[in-house]
């Protein structure tokens, strides 16, 4: 798994993808920071992160689109799947690599926190919780993107589908509120990741939301493994 993780991480920085991700993330969050915090003299970091969370739609596809699809297109999955490594370690290694790039980017945004702390008092504990929530939400999105990337050989298709899926999750709260059928509402509410995220942006470390997010990621990793496994049995 370590080998898969390392190779994947390396390829983010050997190709433009890693830099495009970091660059666009830092750019957009920088704008939000400038307008949301500095111009409006607010020190609420959580509000800023929550405003900037729409960015997942745009940047997560960059991170996940080629994770599995490209292995299939170039047939390198034949090397991985005929080697003595388990499918789980392939999937998890890739997932962690993408999460690591995301984490590194978040660490860079720590500069904003330092700037804020120079101008006003902020609670580092609260900021940490904000970050944790943001990071875990991002990881959930990455798991969704990874799953979608196994469904196709085309990066572009994977990117567009991931964009769509995250948009849907983003809008889930509004969708749930207009659906009156109880059962569907319950299911969709489970998918409503961003309502959980809002706990964290308020600075509350909610254990159940934390567990929820870990479970959410795990479910999509499981679906990823299952769909690769299924394809080996059917089409090939």
């Amino acid at each position: 798994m370590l080998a898969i993780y390392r190779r994947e991480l390396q390829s983010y920085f050997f190709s433009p993808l890693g830099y495009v991700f970091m660059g666009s993330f830092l750019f957009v969050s920088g704008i939000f920071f400038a307008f949301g915090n500095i111009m409006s003299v607010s020190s609420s970091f959580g509000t800023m992160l929550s405003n900037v969370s729409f960015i997942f739609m745009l940047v997560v596809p960059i991170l996940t689109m080629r994770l599995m699809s490209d292995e299939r297109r170039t047939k390198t999955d034949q090397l991985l799947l005929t080697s003595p490594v388990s499918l789980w370690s392939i999937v998890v290694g890739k997932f962690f690599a993408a999460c690591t790039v995301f984490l590194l980017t978040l660490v860079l945004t720590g500069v904003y926190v330092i700037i804020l702390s120079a101008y006003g008092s902020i609670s580092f504990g609260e900021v940490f919780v904000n970050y944790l929530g943001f990071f875990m939400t991002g990881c959930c999105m990455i798991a969704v993107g990874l799953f979608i990337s196994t469904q196709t050989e085309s990066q572009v298709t994977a990117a567009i589908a991931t964009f769509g899926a995250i948009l849907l999750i983003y809008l889930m709260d509004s969708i749930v509120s207009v659906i009156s059928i109880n059962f569907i509402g319950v299911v969709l509410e489970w998918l409503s990741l961003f309502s959980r995220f809002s706990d964290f942006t308020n600075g509350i470390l909610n254990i159940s939301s934390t567990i929820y997010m870990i479970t959410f990621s795990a479910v999509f990793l499981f679906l990823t493994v299952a769909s690769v496994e299924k394809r080996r049995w059917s089409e090939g």
Partner: protein
Amino acid sequence: MIEIKNVTKRYGTKLAVDDVTFTINKGEVLGFLGRNGAGKSTTMNIVTGYISATSGQVLVDGMDILEEPRQAKRCIGYLPEQPPLYMDMTVEEYLYFVCDIKEVRKRNQKAHLEDIYELVKIADVRKRLIKNLSKGYKQRVGLAQALVGNPDVIIMDEPTVGLDPRQIIEIRRLIRDLGHNHTVVLSSHILHEVSDVCDRVVIINNGKIVAQDSLEHLTQGIGEGVRMMVRVVGPEKPVQRLIRNVPGVSLAEPMGMKEPDSMDFMVESAPGNDVRRPLVNALVSGGYSLLMLRPMDVTLEDIFLQLTSESSEGGN
């Protein structure tokens, strides 16, 4: 070494591989022959555990590839039809990565790779990005990848497709070298591709095994002495009549003039009946000069025709 038992693979309604059973013996070089679309790649993908069969079983050293995949996969090095290369890595980075996933110990990796560079002759490109290599080199890096971890069995799917003649000779020489201390399986749709490297061939057609035997046995029936080309100085019709009258000759067909004043004939005779001596004697005593006599290439098509027409001999 590897037992393939009643393996079937179905794609929708199409049977890509139909109840295939054969054994790969330890130490042999096995050729896996079949036309395009016969089911070679599918079979190899199943044997190496890349895809699963619809039914049937593959045992590697007694271990089921699906039930004990880690142990079983450790015994096999696989070079698929398209070498599984990461274009954005250098040769060296790539092979270290393969070492990691094939569980070669860290401290042995360097020496192990040196041996492989030596064997497949890629030491001079080890720092190059794979995407910048020529097709021949890519194929060799692909082969290097299959050798990592020193697996007992090397499986290669059409290893010479798309290479130029010189590269083909190189790869074939490599395969022969590998055969000295590995079990090797290679697939091909060209008979002469396997005839000079393989001990035994398995022939697959429409997903079914139609023959498995040593090459000598398979080509015996239609090999040397059975169909040959003779070039004779003399008029077409009388010479043809003369050849036809030689005992044992079943067919004599003119094939046109390839050399001034001479005529080429294709001569066929019954299997196991060497007509060369009586034929030459008859020509000489008829006063015709013989310029050339050579066996005609046995093609895979010939063997197929033979095997499918004489079904009693097939599948044995």
